[in-house]
């Protein structure tokens, strides 16, 4: 999972236009990844086993790891960065190294869950790159999981309905928000989380070939607000608009 600024409405950039100005912002977890954490907890509750959470981020990202452990994740792995942004190639490489080290020490993971895309960078590729490097099947955009003996059935929205994929374990799934409704951590959960282990590693920053030059805000779209009226007197204008939208035929 990834620690991201909790933006609300208008985004402000730093003077060098390299980052979002977070001086007055809190931080949270990318929503798809928040759902992935919740799904991991639910899978363990339903089928047994254990779960771990991993993030690549600055020292402060331990807060998000503890949030995840407060929900029921047993342990955490923190790939500590100096705050510089990592591109998706480099991020995937660091995660692969960490997964290999974890599996060498504690045995293989049955499932690696990712968010479908990070809220901030929207790269859509880290989970797939990890799956490729580890030679595991990967289904993206998952909104439903059913574990079977040595396989997992993953559902996602597709053209005209749901697409169903049945793949062998171990596997990689990238999840989309909406697969579940993440729970809130309890106070005892938060207290327990502080005692759970966070394993730290400091990977070396690298570039993967996609180099950010600068950030910029999109040009404002001109918009106009028209007050249609109040109560019943607004109805004729509403009907006009519905006709214009093709919702109502004359």
């Amino acid at each position, binding site marked *: 999972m990834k620690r*991201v600024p*909790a*933006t*609300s*409405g208008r*985004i402000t950039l730093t003077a060098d236009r390299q980052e979002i100005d977070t001086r007055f912002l809190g931080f*949270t977890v990318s*929503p*798809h990844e928040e759902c992935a954490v919740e799904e991991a907890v639910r899978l363990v509750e339903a089928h047994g086993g254990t779960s771990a959470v991993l993030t690549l981020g600055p020292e402060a990202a331990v807060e998000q790891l503890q949030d995840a452990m407060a929900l029921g994740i047993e342990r955490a792995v923190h790939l500590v960065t100096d705050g510089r942004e990592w*591109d*998706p*190639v480099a991020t*995937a490489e660091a995660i692969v190294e960490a997964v290999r080290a974890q599996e060498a020490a504690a045995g293989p993971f049955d499932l690696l869950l990712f*968010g479908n*895309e990070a*809220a*901030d*960078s*929207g*790269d*859509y*590729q880290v989970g*797939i*790159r990890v799956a*490729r*490097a580890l030679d595991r*099947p*990967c289904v*993206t*955009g998952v909104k439903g999981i059913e574990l079977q003996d040595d396989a997992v059935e993953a*559902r*996602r*929205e*597709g*053209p*005209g*309905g749901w*697409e*169903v994929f*049945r*793949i062998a374990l171990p596997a990689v799934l990238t999840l*989309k*928000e*909406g697969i579940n*409704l993440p729970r*809130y951590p309890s106070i005892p959960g938060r207290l327990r989380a502080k005692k759970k282990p966070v394993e730290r590693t400091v990977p070396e920053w690298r570039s*993967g*070939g*996609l*180099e*950010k*030059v*600068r*950030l*910029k*805000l*999109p040009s404002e779209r001109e918009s106009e607000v028209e007050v249609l009226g109040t109560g019943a007197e607004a109805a004729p204008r509403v009907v006009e608009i519905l006709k214009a*939208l*093709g*919702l109502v035929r004359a």
Partner: protein
Amino acid sequence: MILGLVEHDRGRPNDLSFQMLAFGRRLAAGRGEPLEAVLIGTEAEPIAGALGAHGVSKVHLIRHDELTDYAPEAWAEAIVQLIASTGATVVMAAGSDRGNEVMAHVAARTEMPMASNCVAADPGDPFQVTRQRWGGTLLEEAVLRAPVTLITVAPHAVQADSSPATPTEVAVAPFDPNLSEQEFRVRVTDRVEKPAGQTSLSEARVVVGGGRGVGSAAGFGALEQAVGRHRGVLPRRNQRGVAYPRRSDRPDRRAHRSGSVHRLRDQRRHPAHRGVQGSETHPGGQHRSRGAHPG
């Protein structure tokens, strides 16, 4: 040569691919290179003839007995082999779920970077892109350093253009990739079709929201009437009358959900309560959607 993946589902093209071709056409003109397209599976062959109007000079038709339905790794491996065969310098797809997925697989297999959801490109050296972040509420200017440029085009970054001054003839070149069983380990194994007449939020052309202003679950009556009259769809609700709990009602750090919501692209009629996940409640969703009218 610039190569665009024209995405389809069992022979039905995705309209976002035509937008991608319009983007590719400008890029091709800027580089002085031809725009060619790739169609995967013989089921897609009927699409080929229509691509000339979108500026495509040649269509590479991927053929394989097992390519009967969507299989992301097989699609990607076929494209990787086609790149090697044709020497494509830029490969692109629509920034759809499948487009991003297939291109990410191509990038992983070729160990090259990929820029997703681009809204502009400058085909110089190095290749520069402007791409969406935070669901489109922020843009990033970036450079891609790779032997082959891999990008996806953000939905609605450009309009599809199917009326060229000089329509081009389309040559169809079959391509038979060497695909192993491994490439088909991920494939659509089953489908649950939507009941006839239903429209999903992602397909809705118009979304009508009714927020807390309606007062209570009973206050949604007007919306429900509209659904009945106009053959719309009402999402699943909970006891509070909310389609899904509005995430931003939560009194904590999750005050605004972040950039994952961008599915309101081609709305049809879809009266929805404000609070539907991935819809009009999020700035990113609003920014990238057209014609969303939160109530």
